[in-house]
């Protein structure tokens, strides 16, 4: 093997020396250009702004999906990905779907998303959320374009799409094609996250946090406008969408999520359009009563459903899709697919999320997940009233309870105490995973140079997810009031 490699290298070297001067120069130019291009692409990738659920996660996640694996694809703005949750569709109906959208997505960009989607997927149903059909493309709204375009890989389709969108100012379109022109100044604000590559989107494009809007939504303006006109350019785009779906043997489905600002005139116009082209149209506004969507509990703001509202809307969508289209129930397949993995990840995530919301010490301890986690405990100050609990805690991990009462810390990895008790007079103890470092002393817990000493008198608990390599929670319980945990933000 070694001699083969030597022959290969020496053979290449011989050929190199036999090359004429022009050949060598050519090779040098090619090599230099290749290095420069690679460095440029890396820098561009690093400097790009991570738009999270607004764009980056959804777009990158779509390209990480296995080719020809999605049967129902949802396209549109945030109202789309806050309404339909593909994991609900999978868990309850076995539908393999994805929310391929971006915040504030203009209608013309939805068309580019469809074109891009068909390069990798052959969905049976393309579901389009029609919020933006009444708005003409405004290229001065850079954010709405960046959310969708920045992370879309370079391709002929993208080039053509941008050329069409920026037909009046092609120079401006260039900065969307080469994102570094817009994001180059981000070198000043780079953090560790910018160097971490995120591809898979375990939410399958959906964004359904369990936030609730401050006040019930007021839909009284819905009936104020009786008529609305779809701009001619958007009608043309719509016809192109239809043609594209037709060419790919995909059924187009229109739907509209409820949001304040939308009016009955717009609903009628979309209904008329759907009727004209023989397309189904799901109007969630009309279904709010039937689906028991509560204006006080099921929205996170004026435009977006929250986790609870999305669950109801997705259930309806699942039933509609299974009853109107011949879709495969992917849950019955033997092999794990990406939706199965995503469901497990979601379960994992929600458990972590719950931990960061628990207030009382007894409940916290009862739900503390030891498997796959690292928990660090730090006892400090006067712990009168907590003695019995701390003795029990020390006993559970084979430590000296009386010593712990005097103060100290210890770490538990996968249910096993790995540090022993670090007393106030002992030195430091370190635990590392990847770039994350946990440091314990007799009186404090530090994680990546940030110190967590949340209560002066009582117990501080730090929780880290080993599997995901991320911080989960840090909470302090005062010895005098262990029922109310104290967290850093508070």
């Amino acid at each position, binding site marked *: 093997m070694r001699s083969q490699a030597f022959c290969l290298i020496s053979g290449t070297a011989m050929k190199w020396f036999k090359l004429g001067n022009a050949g060598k120069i050519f090779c040098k130019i090619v090599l*230099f250009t290749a*290095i420069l291009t690679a*460095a*440029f692409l890396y820098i561009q990738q690093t*400097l790009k702004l991570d738009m999270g659920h607004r764009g980056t996660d959804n777009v990158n996640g779509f390209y990480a999906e296995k080719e020809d694996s999605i049967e129902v694809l949802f396209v549109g703005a945030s109202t789309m990905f806050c309404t339909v949750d593909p994991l609900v569709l999978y868990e309850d109906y076995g539908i393999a779907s994805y929310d391929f959208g971006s915040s504030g997505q203009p209608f013309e960009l939805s068309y580019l998303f469809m074109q891009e989607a068909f390069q990798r997927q052959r969905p049976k149903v393309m579901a389009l959320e029609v919020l933006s059909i009444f708005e003409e493309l405004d290229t001065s709204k*850079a954010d709405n374009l960046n959310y969708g375009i920045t992370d879309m890989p370079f391709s002929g389709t993208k080039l053509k799409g941008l050329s069409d969108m920026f037909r009046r100012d092609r120079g401006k379109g260039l900065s969307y094609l080469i994102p570094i*022109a817009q994001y*180059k*100044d981000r070198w*000043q604000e780079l953090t560790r996250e910018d160097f971490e590559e995120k591809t898979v989107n375990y939410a399958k494009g959906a964004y359904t946090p369990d936030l609730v809007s401050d006040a019930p939504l007021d839909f009284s303006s819905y009936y104020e406008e009786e008529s609305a006109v779809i701009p001619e350019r958007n009608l043309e785009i719509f016809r192109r969408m239809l043609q594209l779906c037709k060419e790919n043997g995909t059924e187009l489905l229109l739907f509209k999520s409820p949001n304040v600002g939308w009016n009955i005139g717009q609903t009628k116009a979309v209904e008329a359009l759907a009727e004209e082209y023989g397309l189904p149209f799901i109007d969630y506004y009309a279904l709010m009563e039937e689906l028991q969507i509560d204006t006080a509990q099921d929205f996170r703001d004026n435009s977006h459903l929250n986790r609870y509202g999305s669950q109801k809307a997705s259930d309806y969508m699942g039933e509609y899709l299974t009853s109107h289209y011949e879709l495969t129930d992917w849950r019955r397949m033997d092999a794990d697919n990406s939706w199965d993995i995503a469901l497990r990840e979601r379960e994992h995530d929600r458990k972590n999320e719950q931990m960061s919301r628990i207030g009382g010490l007894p409940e916290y301890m009862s739900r503390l997940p030891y498997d796959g986690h690292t928990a660090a405990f730090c006892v400090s100050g006067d712990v009168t009233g907590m003695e019995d609990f701390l003795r029990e805690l020390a006993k559970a991990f084979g430590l000296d309870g009386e010593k712990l009462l005097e103060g100290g810390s210890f770490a538990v990895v996968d249910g096993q105490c790995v540090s022993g008790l670090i007393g106030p007079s002992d030195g430091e103890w370190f635990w590392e995973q990847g770039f994350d470092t946990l440091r314990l002393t007799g009186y404090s817990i530090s994680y990546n140079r940030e110190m967590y000493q949340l209560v002066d008198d009582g117990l501080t608990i730090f929780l880290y997810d080993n599997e995901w390599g991320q911080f989960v929670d840090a909470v302090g319980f005062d010895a005098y009031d262990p029922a109310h945990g104290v967290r850093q933000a508070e």
Partner: protein
Amino acid sequence: MSFTSYQFFVFLPVVLVCYFLIPGRWRRGWLLLVSLLFVLHFDDKYLLILLVSTLLSYAAGLFLERLHRRGAPKEKARRIGMFVSVLALLGILTACKYLGFLIENGNRILRIFGAGGVKAPVSLILPIGISYYILQMISYLADVYRGKISAERNLLDFTLYTSFFPKLMSGPIERADAFLLQIRACRSWKLWNWERISGGLTLMVWGYFQKLVIADRLAIFSDEVFGHYRQYGSVELALGVTVFFFQLYADCNGYMSIAQGAAGILGFTLQDNYNAPYFAHSLREYWSRWHVSLSTWLRDYVYIPLGGNRKGELRKDINLLLTFLISGLWHGASWNFVVWGALHGLYQVAERRLEPIVDAVNRRLHTRTQSFAYRGMRIVKTWLLNIIAFVFFKSATLKDAAGYLRRILCKWDPWVLFDGSLYTMGVSEKCWKAALAGLILFFVMDGIKYRTGERIDGWLGRQCIWFRWGFLLMLILSCIVLGAYGPAYDVRNFAYFGF
């Protein structure tokens, strides 16, 4: 089409590819065509003025030569011909560049006498590069008049001499004898010379680095300070003009490197306009290193014809003052440029007159004049005098310049160095650091040039391939990431573009 515009990045490769592929006999025609298109891209009026001036000086050159051949009887006619043709060229320059200034000042005088003002007869335009190509034409006519060169008979070659796009916008002011030789020879050049091409590309990259990473980044700060000087105290204002002092050099030298690089790839050599001027120990040395083509032009066509140093000490002082006043006026049609020029003239006179005294004092005190510290102090002295003069150069009006200097002396605010105020003036702390790092690199390269006379392309060409490639990659990527360009920045023209 500025060198930093997107269009130029399309224009230049197209020009180069065709230039390298076409037969040698078409090269001059191709360069002329693209140079004229380059001007046309700005404005068709600019092209018209360039062509009219070119035709005028071309015809005048032939006329002067014809009279020269006829000898002494036609000497008076030749003098008149020379005078009229230079006057016509200066008339074009005045009409485009100084008419507004003349009318404004004329109106002031008229108002003193109670008379009404006069309006400009046409809307005034300042064609790109007019200050440069008019000087080139004048020097060409003077050289023909003196019999130093023969008049150019080929109109196309002569037009290429006046309009060659790399040097059109901001010089250098090339002399006709050397440049026309290059034009005539270019048809037979062997273009595929990798050393020359890579040297040209290196120079261009280095030029963009100076412009985008240093000059345009620093310009944000100096523009802010000069634009709102009434809001700032001594430290910010002193820093503002010091930053401008470095910015201007990075800007000018950046342009020159790009121009030399582009011309170099085409096979042409442009003279070095900036020869490490900030290492000069005296203002006299500074002016022999700063904007060399203008300085030598002024020396040959203004200072020497005025009598130079041949007519006594007093006349020499007066000639120096006059030359620098003209230099100031050339830089811009405004009284602050005149004052800036006058200050430099006075500096020159004072430096010359004080030199024996300083020497005597040094001898008496046994000062080690070759020591690093003494030489360093002389460099700093040159900087300081220059910086004071630059207040007039950068300020919008004389009144602003006076206000600026007054505030530097009266509004002492040292705390801004420590309380973070400096980072709230358009340039963040990290950007400062980036610009400073760029500036240090810039001065290291200039130091090499000062000591060895070698430009960056020559110096880098002698290094090993790993260093060379690493250095070039660093420059290119720095331009891309740290450069002040893109949607968040105004496109800034090169500083000497407007002169």
